[in-house]
């Protein structure tokens, strides 16, 4: 396998578009992923994350724009690119009637790896995924977390340079998610480039060096989690609860205090550089909230600010 030139990005997309009939799933996006980084697509359901991932995975041809993966064109070199990718799809594609080990063996054969190599590799991967003691169990009764770890182990059978993870921890309990994150950290440390989609902010903050926020098929923000918070939120958020059903009335009374106030049904969010100072200013205006909480801004604040609070179904 030829080493990839360091200066060239591993993935580069220009005006990348995916249309299904009249519906535009991805509306002309630009991004680059560099070797060794963990890159995230963050966005609500229907933002176009999975469509983008499927194009990167060379299973869905772009409708327009250019896409280069490992310096190759998916339209011309799809199979060659896929041979160097690992893919963890949103829905597991395991054969639940085969054993854990057989799933890896069969998958290794898809990449044309000799049986002896796959056998050896399977043992390593089972160890990595902490599934060695379940190696000869049928997949069907395993827990969601185990199945997900198996899917990840399987995706590594061909020693991929680039690992695509579409919502890797959706539907898992907190313990299972942390085990999975730990495994992904190890992969990243060993030099595998990770590209993942998620709608979990904590996941994005934990794993991603850089991310883009997608909404309605477009990229609405780009940067490291820290940069995004700095650009699209303030350093801190002051949460105020008042003894009233209508918090909008209180927002009026606080007008001009901070650059941005958000009214939620049960509280006000004041975006501020210094929560304590702002809390004092609120009291100085003669207001007495039921509760006051000053906290750091999170990616979730950025996310909700950029993509709105309306439920998308």
């Amino acid at each position, binding site marked *: 396998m030829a080493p990839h030139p360091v200066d060239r990005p591993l993935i580069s997309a220009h005006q990348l578009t995916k249309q299904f009939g009249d519906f535009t799933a991805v509306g002309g996006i630009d991004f680059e992923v560099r070797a060794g980084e963990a890159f995230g697509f963050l966005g609500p359901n229907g933002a176009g994350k999975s469509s983008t991932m499927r194009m990167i995975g060379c299973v869905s041809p772009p409708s327009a724009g250019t896409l280069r993966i490992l310096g190759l064109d998916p339209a011309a070199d799809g*199979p060659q690119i896929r041979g160097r990718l690992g893919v963890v799809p949103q829905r597991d594609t*395991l054969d639940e009637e085969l054993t854990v080990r057989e799933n890896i063996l069969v998958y290794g054969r898809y990449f044309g790896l000799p049986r002896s190599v796959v056998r050896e590799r399977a043992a390593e991967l089972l160890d990595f995924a902490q599934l060695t003691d379940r190696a000869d169990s049928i997949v069907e009764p395993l827990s969601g977390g185990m199945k997900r770890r198996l899917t990840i182990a399987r995706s590594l059978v061909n020693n991929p340079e680039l690992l695509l993870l579409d919502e890797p921890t959706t539907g898992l309990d907190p313990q299972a998610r942390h085990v999975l994150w730990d495994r992904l950290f190890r992969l990243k440390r060993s030099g595998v480039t990770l590209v993942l989609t998620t709608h979990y902010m904590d996941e994005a903050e934990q794993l991603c060096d850089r991310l883009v926020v997608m909404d309605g098929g477009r990229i609405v923000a780009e940067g490291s989690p820290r940069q995004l918070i700095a650009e699209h939120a303030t350093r801190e958020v002051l949460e105020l609860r008042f003894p009233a059903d209508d918090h909008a009335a209180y927002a009026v009374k606080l007008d001009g205090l901070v650059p941005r106030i958000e009214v939620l049904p049960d509280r006000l969010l004041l975006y501020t550089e210094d929560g304590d100072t702002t809390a004092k200013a609120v009291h100085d205006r003669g207001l007495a909230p039921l509760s006051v909480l000053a906290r750091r801004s999170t990616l979730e604040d950025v996310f909700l600010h950029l993509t709105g609070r309306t439920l998308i179904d």
Partner: protein
Amino acid sequence: MWARAFSYWMASYRRIWRGSLVSGFLNPVLFLAAMGIGLGALVDNGSAGGVQGVTYLTFLAPGILAAQAMQTAVFESTFPVLGAVKWQRQYHAMLAAPLGVPDLVVGHLVFVAMRVAITSTAFLLITVAFGAIGSWWAVLTLPVAVLTGLAFAAPVFALAARQDGPGGFNMLFRFIIMPMFLFSGTFFPVEQLPAALELVAMVTPLWHAVELCRGLALETMTMVPALGHVAYLLLWVGAGLWLALASFRKRLVL
């Protein structure tokens, strides 16, 4: 590349081959016993005195051979294909690897052909044991059975890849496969049918398969009709393959 897809189906088959072997030829053997021996006694001793100059069992056995090839192939091409598209999603796993749509279709079809070859061999051995087939020409019915299987499997692949549930398969079994099984010359010569229906029967691929198998087993087949039957079955394989590739692309490459 298709061999990689085939190797998956083999791995999956290794778990279930004993059960599938028994169920795969038990059914045709029951038909052979009930019809060939039970009903056959009436036919042979009645005014007909056999069919086309042979005992009913001898007449029936090659017909059942062709029909079970059809049934095995159709069964293997319905739920397994839909499952690989929609439920277990094995095809999606293959497409994430370097395999392409033609590899998926060909690899799976070759597996179906192998399944047909296995059940047909088992059935043929039983018919020899029953004394229903005695000619060495009958060995040639094995490739014919595989060809028959493919002539059904390929178009059924195309159909299955477009389904969302088992509804379409029930229609297929009830309104196409079952009538074909009964009326395409398996149990009686199609000349017994009204002229219009006889023509319909002769358009079905199963009739051509039955004619070929029977002609070989009874040593009555001649070259030109044989080539015609083979060509007609190949036509179904080719057209079915083309349709299957289109269906698979439409369903899997979005």
